[in-house]
């Protein structure tokens, strides 16, 4: 048994001796090495070890939670968790996980990631910069870098659960700026569980995007025109609008645009929305969620019909549903899971399925529309209604089935659920991404929709 698991067992024992009727100890040990790029150089190399314990316990039907960074502090923090229990609402149907039916996802561990030396990491980052500079002599590889690391996480509880998993990750990205008469920028990134990305290709793509956004013109025709949300823009919209509306906790309370619509057609029959905690190589794929429920594939919307919502253990027990393997320990404003927060509902690897075509083919069917790479202000959307008003900063004009020129920023206004009910088509350019502010893993394609109001 490894050191963290042994510590967790001792903390569990202390919790049970201190008056808990039931207890669960979560641990996380994550090590990350980062190579940061600023203005064409790797100017900052860093390492980070994040290690700690989350204690969740029940006294009667009431829950308390505390956390600490070391075993010694966690043994004391048990008292704090117990002290908080009288406040808790009564959770009569709540029990810690007794599940044993875990499946191990493929492609979540890569030895090459573990063995990387600082100089090698820096050399990979350098490949991104050099490739970007080859595209255009005026390119500035302004920002970006590589994060490489591994984690080991586990959960034990007094019901006999003892489960752990480990994984590796490698994230690389570059933000390239072209400053010539005026300024334009492009970004490209790859998130993976292995060191399988082409670093030069990332740098080249970022630079090529910056070049292609140069010299934008004003959009001439405002109004409701077809919009192709590139996978990166769709990810931004999903994080703040669609995904939170698929959480059972919001839906059951009538705070989601999908509340009470189980079994109804809520989206275009061309698409299905699926969350899969076992997706091979998925950014959050793991045997279990952060409270010891086996990860699984959940079909949320199937051919446009709403099938289910996502639940952590607390919301599942409250509403008499089954937990879906979506208990994630995430803090507000943090895209990563942590020992410092009690579990809430979180999407694992959210994806859109349906019959797909090449993105160029999708665009070839549009007479006049826009292709949007990123939006500003998706987080200001109204999550309860799905209404949004965002500023598209990186976009192209589509004319007669072809991407013709870059556009100056445009305002996009509309309702995302309504737009997803009016899908023109789905592209096959799936990209692995994550949430920026909320915990979320995703693998999303570009999507063309109708019904968005565009103002140039």
């Amino acid at each position, binding site marked *: 048994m490894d050191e963290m698991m042994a510590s967790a067992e001792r903390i569990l024992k202390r919790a049970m001796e201190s008056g808990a009727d039931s207890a669960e100890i979560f641990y996380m040990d994550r090590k990350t090495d980062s190579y940061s790029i*600023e*203005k*064409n*150089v790797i*100017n*900052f*190399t*860093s*390492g980070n*070890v994040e290690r*700690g314990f989350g204690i969740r316990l029940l006294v009667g039907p009431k829950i308390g*939670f*505390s*956390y*600490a*960074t070391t075993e010694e502090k966690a043994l004391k*923090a048990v008292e*704090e968790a117990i*002290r*908080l229990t*009288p*406040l*808790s*609402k009564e959770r009569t149907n709540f029990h810690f996980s007794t599940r044993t039916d875990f499946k191990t996802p493929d492609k979540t561990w890569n030895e090459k990631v573990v063995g990387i030396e*600082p*100089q090698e990491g*820096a050399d990979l980052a350098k490949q991104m910069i050099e490739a970007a500079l080859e595209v255009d002599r005026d390119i*500035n590889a*302004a*920002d970006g870098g590589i994060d490489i690391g591994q984690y080991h996480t586990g959960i034990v509880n007094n019901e006999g659960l003892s489960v752990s998993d480990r994984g590796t990750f490698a994230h690389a990205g570059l*933000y390239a*700026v072209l400053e010539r008469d005026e300024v*334009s*920028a492009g970004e490209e990134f790859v998130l993976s569980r292995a060191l399988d990305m082409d670093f030069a290709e990332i740098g080249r793509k970022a630079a090529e995007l910056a070049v292609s956004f140069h010299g934008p013109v004003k959009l001439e025709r*405002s109004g409701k025109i077809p919009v192709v949300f590139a996978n990166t823009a769709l990810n931004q919209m999903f994080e703040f609008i669609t995904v939170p509306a698929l959480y059972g906790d919001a839906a059951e*309370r*009538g*705070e989601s*645009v999908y509340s009470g619509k189980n079994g109804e057609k809520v989206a275009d029959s061309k698409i299905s929305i699926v969350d899969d905690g076992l997706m091979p190589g998925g950014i959050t794929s793991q045997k279990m969620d952060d409270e010891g429920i086996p990860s699984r594939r959940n079909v949320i919307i199937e051919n446009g019909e709403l099938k289910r919502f996502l639940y952590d253990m*607390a919301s599942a027990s409250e509403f008499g549903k089954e937990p879906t393997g979506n208990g994630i320990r995430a803090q507000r*404003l*943090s895209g990563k899971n942590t020992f410092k927060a*009690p579990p809430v509902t979180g999407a694992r690897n959210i994806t859109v399925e349906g019959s797909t075509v090449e993105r160029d083919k999708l665009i070839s069917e549009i007479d006049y529309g826009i292709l949007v790479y990123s939006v*500003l*202000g998706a*987080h*200001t959307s*109204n*999550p*309860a*209604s799905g*209404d949004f*008003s*965002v*500023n598209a900063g990186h976009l192209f004009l589509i004319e007669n089935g072809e991407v013709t020129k870059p556009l100056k920023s445009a*305002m996009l*206004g*509309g309702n995302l659920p309504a737009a997803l009910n009016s899908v023109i088509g789905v592209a096959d350019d799936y990209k692995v991404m994550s949430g920026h502010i909320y915990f979320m893993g995703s693998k999303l394609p570009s999507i063309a929709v109708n019904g968005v*109001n565009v*103002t140039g």
Partner: protein
Amino acid sequence: MEDSRLISLAMDNGADYAEIRYGSKRGTSLEIQGNEVKSASYGEDSGASVRVLSGGAWGFYSTSDLTDAGMKSAMETAVKLAKVSAANVTEKAVLAEIPRATGKEIWAPKKNALDIPIEEKRDLLLDIARAVKEVEKIHSITTGYGDNTEMQHVVNSEGTDVYTEVSRTYARARIIAREGADIVGFVASAGGTGGYEVFDISDPIEHFAESARSAARILTASSPPSGKFPVVTDPDLTGVFAHEALGHATEADLVQSGSSCLAGKIEQKIGNDIVTIVDDPTLPNVYGSFPYDAEGVKAKRKVLVDKGVLKSYIVNRETAARYGIMPNGGARAESYAHRPIVRMSNTFIENGAHSFEELIEDIKYGIYAKGSRGGQVDTTRGSFQFSAEEAFLIENGEITKPLKDVSLSGMTLEILNMIDAVGNDLRLSSPGNCGKGQWVPVSDGGPHVRIQGAVIGGGQ
């Protein structure tokens, strides 16, 4: 292991500068849904980071393992990483001189939140929920409470040794108003630096009740017209504007990386004469305040724009040296585990001469935009977007019908010239968190401000 020995270890291995920053943050958080506690948590996150400069490049390592072995390994690794970076940098980092700082600065709360029984904190949230629910059309409310005390101890190879403690206390709420199929979500917060006394300084219950009234009003609001209109922003939205549109572009690390539209514009006129913009971390009880930054530099009030002229960037020691600006204490880190980067604190537009009535009386057809549901900026291009929480039409100098989903967008360098009147009712807004790869507590504000023509979107 003594700090001095750890520092010597780095210096003996070839570091030109070494720094240890211990940090710990302990506190309570509470979340209430309906009338019940959804979660209550208490914890302490503590650890340290070491940062070394060698050959003009940085190495950084952070850990929660504070044992001798853990700290020694962290320091050795940081030196190794700095040397890897040094082989790559073309512009060597140099640190601006600062006065050697030693001592303690503890911002002791008047009412230590850790001494307040957790039941009292819960009752405050229940009182807020009750007041909010009394407002018609309110469907549900989720409230949260948090208090924390953050300790920071910075020791460096130049003899700086500063210990600081700052407490922050806040409440927040997500209010859902609903009528038929229409649904409105509204987020509000209250609090500041300090202990439980932050709630004596301003009444949180009335604050959230007012938010609930706004949420209910929005239900009956219409979509705004699209296009360019005169806009009057309230202090909250003025603050978002100061922070998003201008503040971020004055962060010298963005200037240095070529990601700011304000590069090369120091001492240039970028706005109307009546526009003065300040970043001030020294204001008592305001959420974004702090005594010393994460490099052990004393926090300072910074006039960023003085009567329309760009005067200063916000700098850390490295960018201070690069741009010849006096270090102004602008390096902040989310926690011990994060590297210090250039950040804002409390950012606001200074008072002008006009009353609110004077700002709107000449407007034939325009928009009065209040509060913010958030905003974002592309500092490179100098474009911004932010959404008002609530808005009204202005017709013939009078506030008329309520509008919803109003968002403003524009270019920083254009809009500062379009501010043609500044109010005299400066107020700093509620607690906020600013994200730039790391999250730090901030605040912003200003008086009511009139913009001649801003692009309004959101109409459907």
